[in-house]
């Protein structure tokens, strides 16, 4: 439980500073950045695996690593969005909300009981709705927050409904006991569908994706990034655990359900991403398509699945955060958020343009970036069941997505129409982008990060 303790300690520290005399914004931010880095490093050193609270809290090596990934992402977000964070009038509130959500996610990844899962899920999502509203002057921000709270409340209700039926048919809330009691009866299939729908909501898989674009566009950039990478990543970790653990014996039933959702998610995400002009909405739809690939990797029921999903989430964090980081920097300094205005960014800001291009390559799955490997593993895993037509249909989406990712790369390097001023990233932003870039280039070519994940599983 080391990771949770550390997150809690940072949370309390921020709270105490807020209640006391307070610190200068930038000092507080640097402190949090430092503490997050430190706790990420410490969390990587391993954690005890004894179950706590009568099996409510389970911690395996893979779960511990997944929490480190989430912490790492939180650290990157604190680095990359320093412009917004320093200027925000509610920095401590923002940090407290974000850290409580992170804490919820850590507990969620380690939950061994449906009750625990539900509680930590609520802890993970409710603060995000408040954080989405932190751009107090903008109507869109409130609109996004409203949509987020309504849809998460609804999906929590659906989840509870599903949980109640699981309890009704198996007589327990404990994952281990439930796994033994799952026999694929119609009632349990229905219960599974409710549980799955709740997760599909949180991960914004089609047809439960409708809230995504509006919320992403309305929320402050760091919150959008958090929703898009950390929140989705943690949901993916939990879902793959549930599918490959508790519901393993029902895999024949959920495989076909997943197939439909994967194809719908990929197609809808891609088709909408094709036409977006706003960079945040664009990233929202592209992230929907990425979720399709995550789900694709879950369809093969063998131990490689969770490793592939964890690796993909890590690479996805690096790639997507770099794109968000550049977008946030450009938006904070110039107010530009529409894609056509990025035309010619390479002329005035070669560093930012290259970072953006690299992250788009990685998101599109172009070698030698790590995104290629991560996506390939998910596809190989998805093909394990032998339904090649299904995997072909999914993989065709890579070709489609190439079109819209490359469209932006082309814009970045074209001749500018109106010049974008040269923007100098703050040191922390530069560091964050460089970490992303190194990760995107090396995490694929060198196999040891994946190998490490695979030994944990």
């Amino acid at each position, binding site marked *: 439980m080391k990771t949770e303790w550390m997150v809690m300690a940072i949370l309390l520290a921020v709270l105490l500073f807020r209640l006391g005399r307070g610190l200068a914004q930038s000092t507080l931010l640097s402190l949090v950045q430092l503490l997050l880095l430190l706790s990420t490093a410490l969390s990587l050193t391993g954690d005890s695996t004894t179950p706590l609270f009568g099996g409510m809290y389970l911690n395996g090596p893979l779960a511990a690593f997944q929490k480190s990934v989430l912490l790492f992402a939180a650290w990157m977000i604190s680095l990359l969005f320093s412009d917004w964070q320093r200027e925000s009038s509610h920095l401590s509130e923002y940090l407290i909300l974000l850290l409580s959500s992170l804490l919820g996610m850590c507990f969620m990844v380690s939950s061994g009981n449906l009750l625990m899962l539900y509680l930590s899920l609520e802890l993970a999502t409710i603060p995000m709705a408040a954080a989405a509203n932190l751009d107090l002057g903008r109507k869109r921000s409130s609109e996004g927050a409203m949509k987020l709270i309504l849809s998460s409340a609804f999906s929590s209700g659906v989840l509870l409904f599903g949980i109640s039926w699981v309890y009704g048919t198996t007589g327990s809330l404990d994952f281990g006991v439930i796994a033994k009691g799952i026999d694929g009866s119609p009632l349990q299939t229905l219960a599974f569908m409710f549980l799955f729908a709740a997760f599909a909501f949180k991960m914004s898989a089609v047809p439960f994706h409708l809230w995504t674009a509006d919320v992403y566009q309305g929320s402050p950039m760091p919150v959008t990034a958090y929703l898009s990478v950390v929140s989705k990543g943690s949901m993916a970790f939990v879902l793959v655990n549930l599918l490959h653990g508790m519901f393993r014996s029902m895999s024949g039933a959920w495989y076909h359900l997943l197939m439909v959702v994967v194809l719908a998610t990929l197609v809808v995400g891609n088709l909408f991403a094709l036409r977006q002009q706003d960079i945040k909405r664009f990233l929202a739809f592209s992230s929907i398509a990425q979720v399709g690939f995550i789900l694709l990797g879950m369809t093969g029921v063998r131990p490689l699945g969770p490793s592939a999903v964890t690796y993909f989430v890590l690479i996805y964090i690096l790639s997507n955060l770099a794109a968000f980081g550049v977008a946030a920097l450009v938006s904070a300094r110039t107010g530009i958020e529409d894609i056509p205005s990025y035309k010619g960014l390479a002329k005035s800001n070669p560093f930012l343009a290259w970072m953006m291009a690299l992250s788009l390559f990685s998101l599109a799955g172009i070698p030698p970036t790590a995104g*290629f*490997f991560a996506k390939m593993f998910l596809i190989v895993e998805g093909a394990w069941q032998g339904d090649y037509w299904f995997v072909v249909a999914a993989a065709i989406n890579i070709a489609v997505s190439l079109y819209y990712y490359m469209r932006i790369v082309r814009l970045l390097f074209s001749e500018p129409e109106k010049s974008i001023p040269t923007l100098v990233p703050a040191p922390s932003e530069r560091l964050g982008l460089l970490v992303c870039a190194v990760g995107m280039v090396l995490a694929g070519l060198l196999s040891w990060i*994946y190998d490490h994940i695979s030994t944990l599983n």
Partner: protein
Amino acid sequence: MNLTAILAIPTLTLLAVLLVPRARQARWAALAGAVAQLAASLWLLVHFREARSSGDSGFLFQWQHAWYADWNIQFHLGVDGISVAMILLTALVVVAGVLVSWEEERMSKTFFGLLTLLGLGAYGFFCSLDLFAMFFFLEVAVVPKFLLIALWGSGRKEYSANKLAIMLMGASVAILMGIIALMYSAPGGQWSFDMLHIAGWEIPADTQTTIFALIFIGFGVFTALFPFHTWVPDGHSSAPTAGSMFLAGISMKLGGYGCLRAAVWLLPKGAVAYGDTIVVLSVVAILYGAFVTLMQTDLKYINAYSSVSHCGFVLLGIGMLTKAAVAGAVLQMVSHGLMTALFFAVIGMVYARTHTRQVSEMGGLMRAMPFIAVLMFLAGLSSLGLPGLSGFVAEMSIFVGGWERGTNFHQAATMLAAMSIVVTAVYVLRAIGATMMGPLRQEAHSSLTDAAWYERVAALVLTAGMLAMGLAPEWLNELVGPDAAAIADRLAAP
């Protein structure tokens, strides 16, 4: 000979190109790297011939490194004669491509970086023995093509770049599915991407035919398999000169090599099942490409459509399934790579001076630029298969191989394909005659300069390759012959 050098040199070149302080130094870094790559490939050729003459067979200089053990992905390098020939071709085209782009000033670091990256992808592709690594390198080469066309191209560059990227990416998906299905079809669950393992598997005939179709169509798109050739004319004509040279000289060869290595060699039963279909499609491509070329008025479109026709010969050689024809297919890849790269280089030189590519707006250019005119003749004559130049050797070998099959169907196909040479002669001679011969059509053209030093060197490198192949075909035959025969033997076995 350590094969990692073949990959390390372009990688270092890429780093050098990106890290030199000033943009104008990038071209020197790129040139130095390209020359080093050529030297390394010649070194490889010498060592390979030594090893072969001392009795070694199969894939030489193998180097293995576990990459992603969970997925049985390895970094497995190794070359046979066919790969050595392709590596040599790549090195020649890279040197020439860098040289013709000598005066490229817009974002020159990125430009030379992309050229080097494209070359790196090709080298890796030709010496990989692991299907996954091969696919990886194939994809490495896709994005540079897109960006070269989209950013430095001319005409309808955005349309062409998108068309190329989407068609090649779609083709890649087919290839990917093919190799994944192939991997999972391992007997006894001994999954592997390693081609040397896969070649030893007993795969049922119906599985082979299904997977063969996926892989062959995928790689076929890269090498302008009819009816998936439509990206070729647009892509080639919109690309900058070096881009067209790389596309036609290297990139289309990735497809031909992939068809041969990943589809025909690994799945012989599939190849036998689809052989006749391939013959029909390639004869259509050969004739259709030739006749469409007749109607073109833009020099780049002429060469692009003639590439469709010439690459049809590669596929025809593969589809004929005999030793001579398969060897001819490899020779045709080398020959077409050199000849078409030279042709595109010459067109680029002409365009840089006259600012037009329309045949009707030129005439009598030989008076102003005799050197360039001679180069154009050489490329054209090789294209129409004149003995003494590379095209003749390759096409002859394919025709002999096709005739050897002995059935009426294959002989008829061979005759039809051979007839395209007449059409080729018409369009090549007409284009050269109209642009180079006769009196100067435009007065302004009399003051044009002849080729500069870098253009001369670029052209000479390619011409040397063409002549070496045309005048002394034995060495190349010795190089690719045994390995082409090894592939053809597997076809005959069942």
